[in-house]
């Protein structure tokens, strides 16, 4: 499993490349690279496949975008079908250029969608939560619990629906929701209590646990609260000064106010005794993925200069394909290669 940050760099490189081109050849190639990556990182033991496969997404979106654009845009030299102008809304010439331009938009959307699908498959939501600053540790825990709670609640809903169906319950009026809602609510509250108890039993305490730690933490929170209030006042005052034609002092005050708030967050974070479990240490695979993605993006921007853009208007032409620029896109495939290799020993003890 790759480090979440490596995946972020990969995603940013992918987004830069996709948004820098309108050439359908490059877009298709990039999408293919993303799909290959998605296929490579999907673990067989996880039933959670992407809810909407990128292939199916393309199947819907590309024709739809083409059609909509053809109906909205009436320019272009190659007229496929001349609908009488008198017809409301759809009247006017239907051009091949407009169809192609629309399909291109659909392709772009597909590429973006696929890139995000990869991130979704690669990085558990839990890892995203780890990026929440430590000062908000309780918030992070609550967020992670909400993620676990949602599927359980759905399962429970199913159970309750069945239980009510077997005693002859039918859904006819609004009132009929009550037999489903009440057990769900009560059951959810009971489960929340149980979970809170389980968390307390495993040492989760927002107050640091002991009386002494709680007191020290409260004092620290008090200090950082003062600091952040001062910071907010600084930003406010800076804004006012800037409005009063004092740009230098205004900017200075805003900057120092922001610094004070960051410091307050850091102070609070430090007072919470807590460490984070690092699932994947940063290793050569991460360097490979990050390096590959960055080189691909830079090289594509440089070498693809002449062929990146493509415009079907006013008359259709065949898009230019530069082999060098196309090859750089393969840099985005690196995760697929290294993840495969890593998966084999993922069950082995890392130490």
């Amino acid at each position: 499993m790759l480090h979440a940050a490596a995946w972020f760099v990969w995603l940013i490189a992918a987004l830069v490349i996709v948004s820098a081109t309108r050439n359908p050849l490059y877009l298709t190639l990039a999408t293919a690279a993303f799909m290959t990556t998605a296929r490579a990182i999907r673990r067989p033991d996880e039933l959670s496949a992407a809810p909407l496969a990128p292939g199916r997404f393309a199947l819907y979106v590309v024709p739809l975008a083409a059609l909509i654009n053809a109906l909205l845009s009436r320019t272009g030299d190659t007229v496929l079908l001349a609908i009488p102008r008198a017809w409301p809304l759809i009247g006017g010439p239907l051009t091949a250029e407009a169809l192609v331009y629309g399909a291109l938009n659909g392709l772009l959307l597909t590429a973006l969608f696929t890139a995000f699908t990869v991130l979704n498959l690669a990085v558990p939501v839990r890892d995203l939560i780890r990026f929440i600053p430590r000062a908000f540790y309780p918030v992070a825990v609550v967020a992670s619990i909400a993620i676990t709670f949602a599927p359980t609640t759905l399962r429970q809903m199913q159970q309750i629906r069945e239980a009510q169906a077997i005693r002859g319950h039918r859904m006819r009026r609004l009132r009929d929701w009550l037999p489903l809602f009440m057990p769900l609510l009560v059951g959810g509250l009971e489960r929340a209590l149980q979970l809170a108890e389980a968390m307390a039993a495993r040492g989760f305490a927002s107050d640091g646990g002991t009386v002494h730690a709680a007191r020290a933490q409260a004092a620290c929170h008090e200090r950082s609260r003062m600091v952040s209030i001062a910071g907010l006042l600084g930003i406010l005052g800076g804004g006012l000064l800037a409005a009063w034609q004092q740009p230098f002092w205004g900017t200075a005050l805003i900057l120092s106010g922001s610094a004070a708030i960051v410091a307050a967050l850091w102070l609070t974070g430090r007072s919470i005794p807590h460490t984070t479990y690092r699932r994947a240490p940063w290793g050569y695979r991460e360097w490979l993925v990050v390096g590959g993605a960055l080189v691909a993006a830079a090289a594509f921007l440089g070498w693809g200069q002449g062929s990146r853009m493509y415009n079907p208007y006013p008359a259709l032409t065949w898009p230019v394909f530069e082999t060098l620029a196309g090859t750089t896109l393969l840099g985005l495939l690196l995760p697929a290669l290294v993840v495969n290799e890593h998966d084999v020993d993922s069950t082995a003890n890392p130490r």
Partner: protein
Amino acid sequence: MIDFAHVTYTYPDAARPALRDVSLSIPDSAFALVVGSSGAGKSTLLRCLNGLVPHFSGGTLTGRIVVDGLDPVAATPSVMSRAVGFVFQDPEAQFVMDRVEDEIAFALENAAIPPEEMEARIADALALLRLTPLRRRKLDTLSGGEKQRVALAAALALRPRILALDEPTSQLDPQSAAELLEALVQLNKSLGLTVVLAEHRLERILPFADQVIYLPDDGAPALAGPPREILPRVPLLPPLQSLAQALGWSPLPLTMEEGSAFSRQLSAISGQRSAVGGQQDTVGAVVEAQGLEAAYGQTMALRGVDVALHRGEIVALLGRNGAGKTTLLKSLVGLLRPRRGEVWVEGRSIAKDDVADVCRRVGYLPQDPNALLFADTVLEELHITLRNHGSAVEDAPIAPEVLLERLGLADKAQRYPRDLSVGERQRVALGAIMVTQPGALLLDEPTRGLDYRAKAQLLDLLRAWRDEGLAILLVTHDVELVAEAADRAMIMDQGAIIAQGNSADVLRASPTFMPQIARLFPASEWLTVADALYGLSCASTPSS
């Protein structure tokens, strides 16, 4: 290691204390079993060990508790978490994270263990419970037994000296429960961990326990000591100990081996069973299914199952978790439409019937009766079912009050169902189902979480209904219940019925499902204590 001196604890707004003047002491490295009926204070006692009582629950606690040199009342649960690992009843309700390794890391993160050491501790905890191959798995892809082992590993991550477990096997099938117990015994023996465990199914634990703590529910003082001292004073015991007491075996056998040493000395064992089964009417089946096939996605859940359920019989359906038992029940009432095969109720196919219509003729009690209950009073629950089926309370096939009387709930008619005990709640759910007087009743693991008394009450009820002609299908892991109640038994595995017939034959043929009495007297046909006592008295009468 653990000392309680005159501990009395009352929950907030409770009329009487949950623990009354409890004094006990549990030595280092003991394996202590906490017994008592539901509501006797077993969970409360366990929660005193790590300070969840009173820190989490509120209420008033008097007396003195010392656990591993610490006072859990002065310290907080967060401090106690390093000394006491805690495992709860429902493996799913205690998970905070969604992956095995993250779940184990949670306690370590809270305790601010440095990341390098964390790695080693997680690896240790995984290895101890043989979970290493599952390390990166998502928790919802694990089986119930695996989940409970993850919960145990998570509790062990902080390397506590004491493990407290609140009915940890009640949600598991017998094999998974045995695996969990094996892990616990190993931790107790090899690491010297003190284990304190509350449980209803004593037969599973007694062979390993070296301390028993009995909490009587009549307010008498708690008893603690070696099993042989305490057990004779506990009212409801597993078959082995009940028989041993009836026959005056001394010292009281705790394991099957000790019991067999006594039973082998008895000669002249007649084969007959004491109880006569229900009067089965084999002419027409109330519920019948042929060639049922069902699947969840690519996984086959049922592979050609034939079942027939007749008036006046109790049929038990046994099998591991995931064998397809619940799927079969759901198919029989139309909650799940089979891919192939057909179901007939009272001779009519249900293929085109509404679930509600089928369920008026076939009652189905799901695993969790809580999913059923939502009304303000017990009586109202019964009325709601009648209204659902569009019939007036006056026209009900059985008056709700009469049914409540039979369920032993007559005095609870105006109570809020969710305030009742587990056993009572289940009987309310039964009432809500049986008020339409169906010809058949299907029950999914009805004894889960029930103490011996509630189980006996349920058993009496089912037998009475059977004798009046009800057809009953019982899905259960509880072998002793099958031995007591079932006329026929079926064993299911991977979606197919692999054994069926007379319950004595089926149970005795399977090494996993053999009841204690059958193990004690392998040459007989006996399944229950009553069988054995009856058989032994028959054997001794002619000679005297």
